[in-house]
């Protein structure tokens, strides 16, 4: 078995003295692991940093095997990330969430394309928070927990949408909410692509997507909690406000 693909490095776990088990997110093979020999060498050390765009060649005797990767760097994102606290927190959140959410060896091409585009924006701190919010919404959608904010789940109205149902992820208008309003999540306009998209609005919107990550997606894929890296990104954004 052998294939060649591009991929985003998600994680690296030491394996023996010199090798590592690397997980990469690829367009055609999804989240896929493989052993990289000599991963702790001086040559490969700087290449194998989370977020790096790699040219990957995977080989194994049988498809079920872990297999081994031959890697070549296409572009490094470490330098951009290390230059900014927000970028570093963002990179950590993206790779941690992808590693957490994605099933192994299942392609998710639209999410891959969005992830690559998002990581290429690292370092552009004024654009990044909104791009991250859009990416997180697409992550939820790709994994079956997308928010439907086009119309009210109760009345069908497309105006005056101010709530999100924590059960269905659908928008609800003030009229439709009635006496249930206090049990619904707020719907920040930025989630519908409306309003000024200030950082405070984005943080509020991330609380809504965070609710669905924590209460819907995470329990569906196992017992592990959503990675801490996401909370640290939101802390970073909040610190930027003060």
């Amino acid at each position, binding site marked *: 078995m052998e294939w060649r693909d591009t991929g985003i490095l998600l*994680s690296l776990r030491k394996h023996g003295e010199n090798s590592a088990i690397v997980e990469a997110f690829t367009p055609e093979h999804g989240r896929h692991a493989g052993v990289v020999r000599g991963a702790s060498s001086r040559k490969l050390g*700087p290449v194998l940093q989370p*977020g790096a765009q790699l040219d990957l060649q995977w080989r194994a005797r049988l498809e079920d095997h872990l297999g081994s990767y031959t890697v070549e*760097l296409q572009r490094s994102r470490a*330098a951009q*990330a290390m230059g900014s606290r927000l970028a570093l927190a963002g990179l950590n959140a993206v790779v941690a969430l992808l590693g957490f959410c994605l099933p192994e060896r299942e392609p998710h091409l639209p999410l891959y394309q969005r992830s690559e585009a998002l990581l290429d924006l690292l370092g552009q701190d004024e654009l990044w928070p909104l791009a991250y919010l859009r990416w997180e919404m697409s992550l939820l959608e790709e994994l079956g927990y997308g928010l439907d904010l086009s119309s009210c789940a109760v009345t069908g109205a497309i105006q005056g949408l101010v709530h999100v149902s924590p059960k269905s992820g659908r928008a609800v208008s003030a009229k439709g909410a009635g006496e249930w309003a206090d049990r619904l999540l707020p719907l920040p306009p930025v989630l519908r692509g409306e309003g000024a998209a200030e950082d405070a609005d984005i943080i509020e919107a991330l609380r809504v997507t965070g609710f669905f990550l924590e209460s819907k997606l995470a329990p569906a894929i196992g017992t592990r909690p959503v990675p801490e890296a996401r909370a640290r990104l939101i802390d970073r954004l909040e610190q930027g406000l003060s």
Partner: protein
Amino acid sequence: MSSTKDIDALIEIMAKLPGLGPRSARRAVLQMIRKRALLMQPLADQMTRVAATARECLNCGNIGTADICDICAAEKRANGQICVVADVADLWAMERAGVFKGRYHVLGGTLSALDGIGPEELSIPRLIDRIEAEGVTEVILALSATIDGQTTAHYIADQLEGRVTLTSLAQGVPIGGELDYLDDGTISAALNARKSL
């Protein structure tokens, strides 16, 4: 085979050491047996002594043979600077260079979502206590130029902001490094950190 049982057991233990495999462990054991008086007995004595006395410094986390390591015990190293490193191996690397004259603080790792190492697993509260207790004026973050290393550096910087001067090691072209062989991330970091001549 039973006559070599003890020797085989020794080879098996030696083969577990970093840098040694079964073949190199066999060679090492054979060499020690040949130089029993010169090498093996002193090594065994020294290992017994170190096994009994080696411990972590209660102050900085360095490995020494006393509760407080030599660096922390030396008055002349209390110059107001603390160099924060991830691991004892990093501390020893800094000491080999012989350039830094202050004290150290060993974190015991770096933040890592994958390995489940959060801030509470690192000795950051102890670092904060030391800053107050030892009248520290500068904290030098000597952490690896990796995503995990720099995430940890920024986390510590957030915790210490306003209390003390914070600096970190420079990143860029290593001594003897040729640009042609450097990865683009290192070149980019070096360019960002360029200085006027």
